[in-house]
């Protein structure tokens, strides 16, 4: 769900009021409410059953970027695993405070408030913005981090979701243009033109996943599965041996139904899907993947695009861009990039897989047709 961080003011308010309690279900935990302790004890018992004698994985979950994040680590002692998870979840909180468009006072928020002038922002914001502009350039604006005014106008994923008038869309669309925005890494500043607003919902979760991977790697964690609401990053393979097995969400099914299995070792997979966030009005479904060139949800014949790449930041931006570009241009884009693969699912239930994923992806649902490149 690359756009997860974007449009949900309601969730932010709830979250920031109560802080960022993390869910934890491993053996060693911080002292807390009795329910936490009791639940943890019971869960540790259940996990002990599941895991048998294998190196004991440690898991934790929390709510960030408008979604639930689960991280499981193993291949290290559980104390080391706990410490690494502490570092990862503090980092998630820090990144949300800097990169969310809906957290008041975040870098992205201040950037919009100060539009027209250079605004000093964190190194994280500089890095993500600069990568975002790179992909905006590469995709001719199909991915555009200045999409803020359109995201706010539609409000998809929030209480205020509605179909705007053509005039409103024209006015908001006129503000969306990455070529009128810039970053100055040497000066530590970023600049938008008057009226523009940034939204990093299509890339920030990927960056958070990469940061989690970096922290876990530096902590000497051998195997990890990082799941940011359906964006997956893995370190190593499964603790039991072999690659991680990742199910590809069925775009027409229930959450958790999958149409095929993707095997990944030391890599990331990110999906943009029309089913992730949407609302319905007069029988029409409006999803959250807005096309900057029309101002409306993209209608490219696709229902989902999954990108497999070494960098989750890149995979996040690319999945959004490829969805908006559609199957032909999207595949051309992916095939032009090194070490990057994709799985496109079309409205007419075709599954198009790039050559480099032919070995690692197996379609398991025969109501779909596999189309190899």
């Amino acid at each position: 769900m690359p756009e997860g961080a974007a449009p949900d003011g309601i969730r932010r308010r709830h979250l920031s009021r109560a802080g960022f309690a993390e869910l934890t279900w491993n053996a060693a935990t911080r002292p807390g409410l009795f329910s936490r302790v009791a639940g943890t004890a019971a869960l540790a018992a259940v996990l002990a059953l599941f895991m048998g004698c294998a190196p004991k994985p440690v898991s934790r979950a929390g709510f960030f970027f408008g979604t639930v994040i689960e991280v499981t680590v193993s291949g290290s002692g559980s104390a080391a695993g706990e410490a690494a998870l502490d570092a990862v979840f503090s980092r998630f909180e820090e990144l949300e405070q800097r990169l969310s468009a809906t957290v008041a006072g975040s870098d992205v928020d201040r950037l919009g408030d100060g539009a027209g002038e250079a605004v000093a922002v964190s190194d994280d914001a500089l890095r993500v913005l600069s990568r975002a502009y790179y992909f905006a350039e590469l995709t001719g604006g199909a991915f555009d981090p200045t999409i803020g005014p359109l995201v706010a106008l539609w409000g998809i994923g929030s209480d205020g979701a509605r179909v705007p008038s053509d005039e409103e869309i024209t006015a908001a669309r006129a503000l969306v243009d990455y070529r009128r925005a810039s970053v100055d890494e040497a000066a530590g500043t970023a600049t938008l033109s008057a009226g523009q607003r940034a939204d990093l919902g299509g890339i920030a979760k990927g960056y958070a996943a990469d940061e989690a991977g970096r922290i876990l790697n530096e902590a000497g964690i051998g195997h990890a599965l990082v799941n940011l609401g359906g964006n997956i990053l893995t370190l190593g393979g499964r603790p039991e041996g072999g690659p991680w097995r990742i199910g590809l969400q069925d775009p027409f099914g229930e959450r958790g139904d999958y149409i095929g299995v993707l095997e990944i070792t030391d890599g990331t997979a990110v999906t943009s899907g029309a089913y992730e966030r949407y609302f319905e009005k007069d029988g029409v479904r409006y999803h959250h993947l807005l096309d900057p060139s029309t101002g409306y949800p993209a209608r490219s014949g696709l229902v989902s695009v999954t990108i497999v790449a070494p960098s989750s930041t890149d995979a996040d931006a690319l999945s959004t861009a490829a969805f908006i570009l559609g199957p032909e241009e999207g595949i051309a884009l992916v095939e032009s990039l090194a070490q990057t693969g994709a799985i496109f699912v079309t409205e007419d239930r075709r599954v198009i897989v790039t050559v480099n994923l032919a070995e690692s992806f197996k379609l398991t649902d025969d109501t779909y047709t596999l189309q190899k490149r």
Partner: protein
Amino acid sequence: MILTRFKKGDLFVAVVTATLLLAAGAAALIARAGAGDPVAIVIVDGAAVDIINLRDARAEERVYASALGTCAVAFEPGRVRIAAADCPDQVCVHTGWISRPGQSAVCVPGRVAVVVRGDRAEVDAIVG
């Protein structure tokens, strides 16, 4: 919160009792569960408060209150769902029934989650 009305000693007793009860419950569950049965874990405000072997689940509805909201969770043999919630977006309710390891129904605004886990899952996670 209700907890603030308790004295520290009461809280300690509650913690120990609840821990023992739940641990005993988990032990009983483990003894009965066939290895690999899907298990529903209900997480409220960051804590796992219920663990239910879905194979043995009876049709019932349980209500969970977090600091931020209330969720009604419906169980049936083999499956579970969030049946009602007082959150604004109802994403958790729209998720519908879940039954297989790896699936989850999550109320982000209310901070209640139901996750299904098991050790014989065919996949480790779902991308999407």
